[in-house]
């Protein structure tokens, strides 16, 4: 991979007494998708706001695309796209007008709103007023708006939250296309499956601190527990569960013993989810 798209060093943000982001440091490489996970109030959105120049860090610094965001936010903002958590579209305008307005502000030449709307599955509804859109359509338009300037970094704050499965899949496809194009993606989400599927690396943030940051595979290796779960016939004819922890020297023997001694009805492997790992690390759930 090329250089770093984002470098956060000792980044801190306080709301009065509350430390929302607490001396966090991390890097995101160009072209990487970083999933940023944490429960509500953990500091995800505040981190995005600092990295996009909406908030000034109280301590530390964020270098985005080689520029100190606190010193020259406009220069950074010209090269990034942001999809907000809360819908903030011009509802009285059409989708096309919304995109064209932002494209003009970004100074995008020969902007094709129709093509971008088609990418997010809004073809044929370009000229409808946004107020007539469903929540999912608005969310897809928000993603499209974040793409008008072909951003080098895409900040997506819960982009699939509340979407139907088809719409969410469409957004995920767009995210992967953007990465394919070379864009860096900073993705905050509650959806662990989504983060697992899309992210090159995931960072867990809890109470303003990054508690883990690695590839999903490594995190599972480091913190997760893989197991084989079997259902066997009990002496009275019912079903009983058996669990064999994997990745241990005695695992092979235990499997042999299971099949030798018991009548196995079903057996499958179980891998730790990112949520399990988060609970393992922090002692609290992601949806708390």
């Amino acid at each position, binding site marked *: 991979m090329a250089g770093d798209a984002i470098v956060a060093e000792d980044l801190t943000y306080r709301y009065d007494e509350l430390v929302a982001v607490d001396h966090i440091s991390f890097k995101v490489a160009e072209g990487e998708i970083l999933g940023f996970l944490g429960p509500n109030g953990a500091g995800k959105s505040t981190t995005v706001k600092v990295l996009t120049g909406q908030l000034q860090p109280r301590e530390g610094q964020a270098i985005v695309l080689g520029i100190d965001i606190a010193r020259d936010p406009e220069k950074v903002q010209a090269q990034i796209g942001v999809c907000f958590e809360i819908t*903030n579209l011009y509802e009285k*305008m059409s989708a096309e007008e919304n995109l064209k307005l932002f494209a003009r502000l970004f100074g995008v030449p020969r902007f094709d709103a129709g093509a971008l709307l088609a990418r997010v599955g809004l073809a044929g509804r370009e000229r409808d007023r946004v107020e007539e859109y469903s929540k999912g359509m608005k969310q897809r338009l928000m993603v499209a*708006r974040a793409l008008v300037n072909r951003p080098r970094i895409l900040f997506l704050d819960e982009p699939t939250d509340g979407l139907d499965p088809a719409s969410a899949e469409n957004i995920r496809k767009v995210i992967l296309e953007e990465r394919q194009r070379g864009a860096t993606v900073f993705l905050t989400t509650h959806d662990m499956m989504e983060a697992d599927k899309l992210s090159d690396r995931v960072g867990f943030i809890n109470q303003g601190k990054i508690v883990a940051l690695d590839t999903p595979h490594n995190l599972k290796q480091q913190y997760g527990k893989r197991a084989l779960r079997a259902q066997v016939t009990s002496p009275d004819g019912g079903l009983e569960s058996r669990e064999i922890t994997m990745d241990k020297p005695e695992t092979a023997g235990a499997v042999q013993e299971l099949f030798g001694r018991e009548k196995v009805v079903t057996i499958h492997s179980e891998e730790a989810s990112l949520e399990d790992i988060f609970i393992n690390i922090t002692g609290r759930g992601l949806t708390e």
Partner: protein
Amino acid sequence: MSLRRVGILLSKEFRHGSKSFIFIIAIVMPLVLSFVLSMVFGTLFSEKPKLGVSDEGDSQITQMVIQSDSIIGREYDSADALRNAVEDGAVDMGIVLPADFDNLVIQGEMAEITAYVWGESLAKNRVVLGATVANMIRDVAGQEVPVEIATTTLGDAESIPWNNRLLPLIVLMAIVFGGIMVPATSLVDEKQKRTLSALAITPASLGEIFLSKGLVGVIVSTVMGVLILVLNQAFGAQTPLLIGMLVLGAVMASTFGIMLGVFAKDVTSLFATNKAIGILYYAPAFVYMFPDIPQWIGRIFPTYYVVQPVVEISQQGGTWSDVALEAFILIGLILIMIGIVGILARRTAQREALA
């Protein structure tokens, strides 16, 4: 600061903001009010100056007065009838022409005219009528001639007619309401719907966003001010100066509108604030409306410096030297408010991000 981006935002404001309720009210209200008051008090501001003539002979001037397009001329049978008409305010000025007036002026001899002036007539009208009469005499005589005018002022010279007392109120409504409320509601609406955060993430700065909204207020406010004056034929000879003062007034109103918009949390609190302090916008107009109130009180209110120059120029024939002090005070107030908006802009950006 990019003028291109300000232009883009300005066009967005006009294309989409012009459908808002406040935008429509800002345009319709002053026109309706002007129309209603015109119906009640006759033509507001100033109609053409009215000149009465009592001709003791057969002067050409009488016909010239009657046929003039620039003034309203009326002929009276006797000097007494003319005097009564002036005293009642039916005409602004009346002149009594002696029997041999035309012969005297043609021969270049000294002629004497008796003139009655209505005490409540506008200074502007007196100037116009005086100049018109002088031109007519010169036309009849074919030369400059010495004419002695014995002037008598009739009626209450201190009093101001009601239609003129209402002038500042109409002008302020035209300038202030649109100037303040159009940018304020637009800004609050963007805050409430969080579109301001979306704009702030683009290369457009908050200063550019505020400027575009302020410009909409300035344009609406100035156009309405000009329209009201045009509809009421209140443009004097100092048109550029009058428009300049209207623009300054509009800038002050819009800057204040941006300040209100920054402070107000939502449209409800904006309207509540506006309702609470709205009386202060129009206070100078109310002071002017009631001459018994010490007129210096009007100067306490910033909008005095918006309306006073407009009244001075349109009604009293005032020039730059007459309104320079008010204009400089107005510019000073605008600069102070722009400074405050600049400080608030930075805080707004942070507050919006925190919302």
